[in-house]
């Protein structure tokens, strides 16, 4: 079968669409297969807790200052913008704190934290595992019957999941406090008025935690998968690092879309 030397416009258009679709499909199935393997190892009790603890420490160490700053500033900005708009329209700032807490739990705290972790921790995982691949450390593990998924991915998966929940709870606190002080100093909203749980139910807290869990599982899996697929020397590690930011952020946004869609009817029914 002979092929045209230059594909036509339609051909180029299709391949431009086809390539990312094929890539994404392979990525998704690869991550799913790896997740299945991770759960198998966990069920068989093959968990190296010392490695989990080391990873938890590393993730916390890498992220705490970063999250304090980003979520702190975000809290100030959000409350300032919302208060500014509300003042112009209704002039009533009674419910500022209550509404802020609701959107913080449902959306901002888990998703922004996850995006931060995707860039900070996800790249670290991809680069670390990627450089182990190109320096043949992963081959050396396999030659000693130490499966890379058990040794490298399982600890990062467990640590990432636990730390994501912890960091999201911390992010809610930081962001909320920053918002409260902005309310006080920018709009003279008394903290007693700002702290108002009227719009927050158990369901909102559940949505927040479920999102944190989902992101916490997805980021280490996607980043490890990218890292293990590294090839071609140190240039490959650069590729894996960049690819990991894109894939991790994308999976956070897509999971957010799905989980928000699923939780909306529940939240609406609960009022």
């Amino acid at each position, binding site marked *: 079968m002979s092929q045209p030397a230059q594909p036509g416009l339609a051909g180029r258009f299709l391949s431009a669409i086809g390539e990312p679709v094929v890539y994404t499909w392979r990525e998704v199935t690869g991550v799913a297969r790896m997740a299945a393997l991770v759960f198998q190892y966990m069920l068989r009790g093959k968990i190296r807790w010392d490695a989990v603890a080391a990873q938890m420490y590393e993730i916390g160490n890498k992220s705490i200052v970063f999250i304090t700053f980003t979520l702190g500033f975000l809290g100030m900005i959000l409350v300032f913008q919302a208060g500014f708009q509300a003042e112009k329209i209704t002039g009533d700032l009674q419910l500022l704190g209550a509404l802020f807490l609701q959107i913080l739990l449902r959306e901002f705290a888990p998703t922004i934290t996850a995006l931060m972790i995707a860039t900070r921790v996800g790249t670290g995982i991809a680069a670390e595992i990627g450089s*182990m691949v190109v*320096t*043949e*450390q992963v*081959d*050396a*593990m*396999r*030659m*000693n*019957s*130490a*499966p890379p998924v058990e040794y490298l991915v399982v600890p990062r998966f467990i640590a990432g999941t636990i730390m994501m929940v912890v960091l999201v709870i911390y992010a809610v606190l930081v962001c909320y406090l920053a918002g409260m002080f902005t309310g006080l100093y920018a709009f003279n909203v008394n903290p007693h008025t700002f702290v108002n749980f009227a719009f927050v139910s158990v369901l909102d807290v559940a949505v927040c935690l479920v999102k944190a869990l989902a992101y916490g599982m997805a980021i280490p899996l996607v980043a490890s998968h990218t890292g293990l697929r590294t090839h071609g020397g140190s240039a490959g590690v650069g590729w894996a690092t960049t690819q990991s930011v894109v894939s991790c952020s994308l999976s956070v946004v897509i999971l957010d879309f799905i989980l928000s869609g699923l939780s909306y009817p529940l939240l609406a029914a609960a009022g």
Partner: protein
Amino acid sequence: MTLLSALGPGDPMIRVEGITKYYLGATVLDGVTLDIPSGSNLGLMGPGGAGKSLLLKIIAGLVEPDQGRVLVDGHDVGTLDAHKLAQLRFNIGMVFQNYALFDSMNVGENIAFPLRQRGGVPEEEIQARVREQLALVGLPGIAHQYPRELSGGMKKRVSFCRAVIPAPPLLFYDDPTAGLDPVTSSKIFIHLRRMQQDGGTTAITISHDIDGIKPICDRFALLDHGRLVFHGTRDEIEASDDRLVRQFWDGFSDD
């Protein structure tokens, strides 16, 4: 616990059958076929980029070939399940070209790793064997150092220790003396030969140090651009009139 041998009488320990590998549109290995009898040490030579390291990784089951198959100890490496492959690999020690030391572990932990993975060796014995190995390669007392603190030649020797410490019946060396001074280099080669004579190991030794491997190998193969140009015994290589074989064996270039 290791995998039982599936060798029939007269079967070679390693059989490589028509291994072909494509990479980025090029044929990097082209129908490589060779046998390595039990107890022999094959010296694998060839110019840079010929595919020596890749062939070794395919034999170890680390890279899948596009065509052909590899039998190690009678087992088809490509069809073994993960558990059996892991068991088979307990029989293999491997020195990687780029050392492949674990950054996160110190030298002692790196060398002890294969023993700890295999299990059943008491901790004091592990420590004693690590010390013994390090002394053998002329690096006593560095067990607590990390790979990043070592020179290339030191890393190579640590990598050597890690490969041989469990005394595996099969040994794959990818340039075990690269970056070593001649004295240390010959120490390693002598150690390597002693293991073979005493333990009856089967080995593949990739090296650019042809004079170094001449006395320790009993079979030789020459790979060039992915094709096996020569494969045979010492007598055969000495009698060969292939130009590249002569250049490698006699150690000069006539153009």
